[in-house]
């Protein structure tokens, strides 16, 4: 019997395996579940798993292989932006579909890619707003790993904060290399910066392996959330499962989903997830939810289009709505981003998050940031304008 | 004591020893003579266990040792002074000597006085690194080191190479002394004919990986031996 193939392009080895392996598992579960429901268009789904091994060019190679050799109908994959950048040309050239489930720096909207993770306006900005309002923060440390995502996010935040009247001397920007493990100096600096009498918070775009030693050092130097809260954009339940969370209670994270969200959808999902992985303690996190949303949207779009043909699916998927796990209904926007609620959570002793703030309505993802000079005038609209970078001033698409 | 029978040894495809048989008896010096490249060193390597043999047997005290590891042979009492000295360059002279403690029981673990009597220079250089010594000093160290293990079979490959005349004489005297103790067999490869002649109880002349001639001390005087050693 013929099947519809779905490509799963997540690193199972190398530095990113830490984060990505779970996403592969989620995808396998979703595919299995869909098959239980009778498959798609009367055919069974078949997951094709490959391991791009945290090696960026290998991502491109594997993407090419999935599309042209395995003839998958769509690919769910990538974590880091660089891996996405690496596969982008492949998807454009071979005209296939990628669902990218991770928060990222924005500044991109491609016809063949659907961004189901958060854009900066769905994560960073609400987080800063929360701190300024709820915690009366006046002084900001923007600490990040030295690469594009943190740099861009911090650029956006810096512009945003300044537009809110924060003075330059109240912003400290600090970059560290990947995998930085000796945080003594930097944490001490943060402590110093924070003891100037004004309420201070750290906005952390620190990524990957460096987080654990960072939090361990925070705990050891006795920086408590009540003194200097840290809000992070890439620390979720998975990451916390590897740290002793007790000293971190009260530090924050901004996401579009928390495992602790109390909705029937989420409860059902977690139950299925644990049954599927046969692990009663397995945690769930935001990018997983993004894959759930993305996968369901794709299924709906395929059903709507009646085919898996990428062109038809790309046209059909805009406007598709599926319930997310936080009780709302997410919609695929014409700019290929989705609407999501923004949740701010505080870390609890058990490594879960306590939602302390949630936007009233869903926030639509913005591909282009208002706070960056080059992209201020750009919009993306693949429905009517058929363009990912339409310039509203020159009224031209791209070039 | 040592009895080598019908030994064959290859380097890759090249055969270096072809059915060599040699004996060495307690209280005797057996001398192996031969021109460059005839296989003298190869024979000693086989006895010390540095090269595997392809055929033949090596018996020590009647026990077949041809499959034993070098350190097992050392533990049986075979000490080897290799050609090219092979001292441990980064160990001090003292440490070099102390490596010989390995097969000894704890009370035996000291450097016998005869080592320093024979080679007084070693005593003054105990803390210098072996690799820094002069060639001749290294050779002395190599012999001294072998004596530390209290061997019952002493295998010497051109021990006089690079050594000053007075010490060569001392070594000669030492070999005679050791032979006189009757608790040791000595197997000596030597190019320096006069030296060999003075010491050998028995001799073997090798040619192209084979034994060409053998006999006792008196036979050495004959011209045919010198003939074989000439070109």
């Amino acid at each position, binding site marked *: 019997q013929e099947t519809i193939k779905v490509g799963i392009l997540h690193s*199972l*080895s190398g530095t990113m395996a830490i984060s990505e392996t779970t996403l592969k598992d989620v995808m396998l579960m979703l595919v299995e579940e869909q098959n239980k429901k009778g498959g798609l268009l009367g055919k069974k789904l078949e997951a094709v*798993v*490959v*391991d*791009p*091994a945290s*090696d*960026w*060019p*290998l991502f*491109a*190679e*594997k993407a*090419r*292989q999935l*599309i*042209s*050799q395995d003839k998958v109908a769509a690919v769910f994959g990538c974590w*880091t*932006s*660089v891996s996405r*950048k*690496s596969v*982008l*040309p*492949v998807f*454009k*050239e071979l005209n296939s579909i990628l669902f990218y489930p991770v928060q990222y720096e924005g*500044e*991109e909207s491609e016809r063949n890619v659907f961004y189901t993770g958060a854009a900066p306006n769905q994560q960073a900005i609400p987080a800063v707003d929360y701190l300024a309002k709820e915690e009366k923060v006046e002084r900001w440390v923007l600490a990040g790993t*030295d*690469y*594009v*995502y943190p*740099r*861009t996010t911090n*650029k956006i935040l810096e512009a945003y904060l300044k537009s809110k009247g924060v003075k330059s001397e109240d912003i400290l920007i600090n*970059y560290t*290399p*990947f995998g930085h493990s000796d945080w003594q100096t930097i944490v001490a600096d943060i402590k110093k910066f924070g003891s100037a009498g004004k309420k201070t918070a750290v906005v952390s775009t620190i990524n990957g392996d460096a987080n654990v030693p960072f939090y361990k050092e925070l705990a050891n130097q006795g920086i408590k959330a009540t003194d200097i809260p840290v809000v992070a954009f890439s620390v979720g339940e998975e990451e916390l499962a590897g740290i002793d969370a007790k000293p971190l209670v009260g530090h924050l994270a901004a996401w579009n989903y928390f495992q602790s969200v109390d909705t029937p959808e989420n409860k059902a999902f977690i139950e299925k997830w644990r049954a599927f992985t046969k692990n009663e303690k397995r945690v769930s996190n935001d990018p997983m939810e993004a894959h759930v949303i993305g996968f369901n949207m794709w299924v709906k779009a395929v059903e709507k289009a009646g085919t898996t043909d990428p062109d038809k699916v790309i046209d059909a998927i805009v406007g598709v709505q599926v319930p997310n796990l936080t009780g709302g209904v997410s919609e695929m926007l014409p700019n290929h981003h989705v609407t999501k609620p923004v949740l701010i959570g505080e870390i609890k002793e058990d490594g879960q998050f306590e939602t302390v703030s949630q936007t009233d309505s869903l926030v639509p993802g913005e591909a282009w940031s208002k706070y*960056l*000079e*080059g*992209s201020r005038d*750009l919009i993306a609209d693949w429905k009517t304008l058929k363009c*990912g*970078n339409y*310039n509203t001033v020159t009224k*031209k698409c*791209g*070039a | 004591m040592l009895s080598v029978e019908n030994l064959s040894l290859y380097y890759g*495809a*090249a055969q270096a020893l072809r059915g060599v048989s040699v004996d060495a008896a307690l209280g005797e010096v057996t001398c192996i003579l031969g021109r460059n490249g005839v296989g003298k060193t190869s024979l000693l390597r086989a006895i010390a266990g540095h090269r595997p043999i392809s055929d033949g047997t090596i018996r020590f005290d009647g026990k077949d040792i041809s499959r034993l590891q070098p350190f097992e042979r050392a533990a049986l009492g075979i000490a080897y002074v290799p050609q090219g000295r092979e001292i441990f360059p980064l160990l001090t002279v003292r440490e070099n000597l102390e490596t010989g403690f390995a097969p000894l029981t704890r009370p035996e673990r000291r450097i016998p006085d005869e080592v320093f009597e024979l080679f007084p220079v070693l005593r003054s250089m105990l803390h210098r690194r072996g690799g820094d010594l002069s060639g001749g000093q290294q050779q002395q160290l190599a012999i001294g080191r072998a004596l530390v293990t209290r061997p019952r079979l002493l295998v010497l490959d051109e021990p006089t190479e690079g050594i000053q005349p007075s010490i060569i004489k001392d070594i000669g005297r030492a070999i005679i002394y050791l032979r006189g103790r009757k608790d040791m067999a000595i197997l000596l490869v030597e190019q320096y004919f006069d030296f060999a002649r003075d010491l050998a109880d028995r001799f073997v002349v090798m040619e192209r990986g084979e034994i060409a001639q053998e006999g006792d001390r008196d036979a050495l005087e004959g011209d045919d031996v010198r003939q074989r050693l000439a070109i």
Partner: protein
Amino acid sequence: MTTQSVLDKQSIVVLSLLAAVAVLVPVLNGLAVPGSALHLSDHLVPLLGKYICFALLALSVDLIWGYCGILSLGHGAFFALGGYAMGMYLMRQIGPRGVYAHPVLPDFMVFLNWKDLPWFWYGFDVFPFAMLMVLLVPGILAFIFGWLAFRSRVTGVYLSIITQAMTYALMLAFFRNNMGFGGNNGLTDFKDILGFPLQSASTRRVLFVLSVAALGAGYLLCRWLVGSKFGKVLVAVRDAESRTRFLGYRVEHYKLAVFTISAMLAGVAGALYVPQVGIINPSEFAPANSIELVIWVAVGGRGTLAGAILGALVVNAGKTWFTGALPEFWLFALGGLFIFVTLFTPRGILGAGQGLWERAKQMLGSKPSRSSFSGGGVVP
């Protein structure tokens, strides 16, 4: 049998194989009917092209390691620099077709608010200049680095470690967005090269053929180098550096020359690699990459040139295959392969193959030859 004749035989085999590949791959890809058994699928062309570039890179490492005993654990740096030079050219070729439609600045500069093109990007819109840089940048770095290191007689692990430090430092530097090379994301989303669209199958075929040609030329160059008296001096340096000095050879000049040549070869490999894989980013500088490529050489057989090529192809094809077929366990397979090769084929795959061949010949009764491996010399 003299050394010379063995070399020639090997060269003939290698070159004819390469020529065959250079013809067959484009033909099977372009002319055979898609779907037929003979058809070579589109995605295989750039993949094979990538292998070929890696083979050239491995060749460059074998030249210095196999023949001169310089174990560089930072050769990926030269590869990456060549790649960046090419990437910069391709980037400039995008022109106003970037997402922000900026006429000059690449996208990553626009959204991080860069105003002007940094000086070191000048000239890269000119193809010949860029190609010159592909050779010069790695070459000059290697020259300066080598000049410092070889003059002070840094050898062995010390040299290996400082080459590693070099590539590590470069990696960190290129990660920095402020360096102006696109940071972690590197350079990507290229459109065309010399006006030919990179996405088109025919451009791909041409690039492939060019890569094979470069590999062939590189192989010939290396063969010529190691076959000459120069090459004999290199081997002498490898085995007894100080003895070579006492014969009056200026070891540092030899090392410097071969190191620089090797770096330039690596640079060429990088330059050909980039348009075929479509991205160049700082992880190419990662020390682990450089270690891995040394391993390709070891797997294939160090000091044989052909072995380096073979090793690069085998390991990378293995990686492609394993990562697809055994995604969860491929590291076991690859790790196991490395251990197997070291334990059972000390002279690499090529050495083992030659050994079998020799034995077969002997069994068939032809006369045994003594110096069948003296061609390159195997590591003691």
